[in-house]
């Protein structure tokens, strides 16, 4: 078995398995801790609050716009760019089609892929330099924050390096780092990709009962 076959085959299967099982286990674990039922007479629906809370926090209120502008722009640039390039990049859809799903969907032209990647890179770089240059971020950041950022960046960079599709080694390196990233994911801060639904929902529900949508 070649190195490429290994990282795209058995190692990928293990990594994906750890990723899926780990994420599921963690989410279920959080929910299972449980919370006492709130018996105070509600003013409005907590369930509706759960949903509203999830939607409301996609954008901070206008009064905070100036203070949070760079963070929001860089944050969305990174997340949206990454989402687009992963799920609409021809190489990725091809991989998913062949390896897992058995079907494909329309993908971006190469220039669209490059553009999405550029936005994603710019966003991630700005987010990380923000983390090291803002006194608040410098105080509250932990190693997990930095590792998460760098691992994601290196994963994206290795993908960028393999764009010419002319050397197996570059493709294999990218896949290897993807596998490492998938294994790291469920044990780290990267899980915010799933946990944000719970946290927004929980406070949305708590405030929703009081008739407030924070």
């Amino acid at each position, binding site marked *: 078995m070649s190195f490429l076959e290994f990282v795209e085959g058995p190692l990928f299967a293990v990594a994906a398995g750890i990723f899926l099982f780990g994420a599921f286990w963690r989410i279920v674990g959080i929910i299972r801790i449980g919370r006492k039922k709130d018996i105070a007479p509600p003013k409005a629906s907590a369930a509706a609050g759960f949903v509203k809370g999830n939607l409301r926090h996609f954008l901070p209120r206008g009064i905070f716009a100036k203070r949070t502008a760079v963070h929001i722009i860089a944050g969305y640039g990174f997340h949206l760019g990454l989402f687009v390039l992963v799920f609409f990049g021809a190489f990725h859809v091809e991989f998913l089609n062949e390896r897992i799903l058995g079907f494909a969907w329309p993908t971006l032209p190469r220039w669209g892929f490059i553009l999405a990647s*550029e936005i994603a890179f710019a966003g991630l770089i700005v987010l990380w330099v923000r983390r090291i240059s803002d006194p608040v971020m410098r105080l509250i950041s932990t190693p997990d924050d930095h590792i998460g950022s760098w691992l994601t960046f290196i994963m994206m960079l290795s993908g960028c390096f393999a764009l010419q599709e002319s050397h197996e080694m570059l493709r294999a390196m990218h896949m290897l780092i993807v596998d490492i990233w998938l294994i790291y994911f469920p044990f780290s801060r990267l899980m915010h990709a799933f946990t944000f639904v719970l946290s927004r929902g929980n406070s949305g529900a708590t405030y929703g009962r009081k008739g407030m949508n924070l």
Partner: protein
Amino acid sequence: MQYLIHMSRKLLWLGALMLLLFAFTAPQLMAQSVRPPGNAVNLDDGTEPGPSNALGDVSDTEIWDQFRGGDPANLLGPALDGQAMTTTGQQWRMVRENLIRKYLGWLPLIVIGLLAVFYLIRGPMRISAGRSGKTIPRFSHNARLAHWFMAAVFIILGLTGLIILLGRPVIAPYLGLQANSILTSAAMQGHNLFGPLFIVALVWLFIKFVRGNFFQLVDLKWIFKLGGFFGSHVSSRQFNFGEKSWFWMVILGGIVISATGILLLFPWLVDDIRWLQLSTIFHALAAVVLIAVAFGHVYVGTIGMEGSIDSMLKGEVDENWAKEHHDLWYEEVTGKSAKEETS
């Protein structure tokens, strides 16, 4: 004893530097030249018949002359009617191989060497009054973000660019052609993807730092006193002459790099291939000059001058640092005299 430890640390640095220099020297010497070797034989001196599969008794030179439109001196002009090829590419290749690739790569190394020597002789410049423990704000968060975003993009582009430029002469002899091919392919993709981000970073940097970077009379005095690098105090406002020069080098050099880079990314934008040839020359020239001076910038901003890194990492600087290096700015910002001691 302390002195011995101190000196041996310095010697270790010097040794490391020499090793680095040597590592780069060797392959440069081994780099292939593009001229034919001295003992080559010219088959076209008219005495020997042409190769057996030649098309008659017209010499090779004459055949190529015809392709070139008949004028052996026309090495640089655009294609004429009936001309099948130009040789401007050859001229370009000469410049790129023999000037750029052979010599330009030395520039950053020379700068690193000079910095090392300067550090060994002068040492890091400490804040003479010591840290006061009180700070004043110097750069806004947005300005810091602009700087570090540019730094990140610059480093990525610089490294990938150097690999593309110097891979063949410098890396291939050590790691082999296959490894070089992998590295260069990776570098090319990375360089092309991050290139447009440099333009974004440049615009952001310009907007955040242009105010305060215009040259003034006080800068002349700074030049005459050699920036205080060799003793003596010089006055400065928010940015001194050195910083201002670096800013404009980055902006102007950056504009050259950006414009040439755009042409190289989208070559169909021009009809005449000479634009692209010039672009590669000026792109490399401006980039390597910036890389070389960037080492100086990083040196002063980190180990070369105590207290400098705070300005860009935390946005605040120690008051004594401000009074020593940017006294006029300190007075403007705080309203206090720079000559008074900070309690």
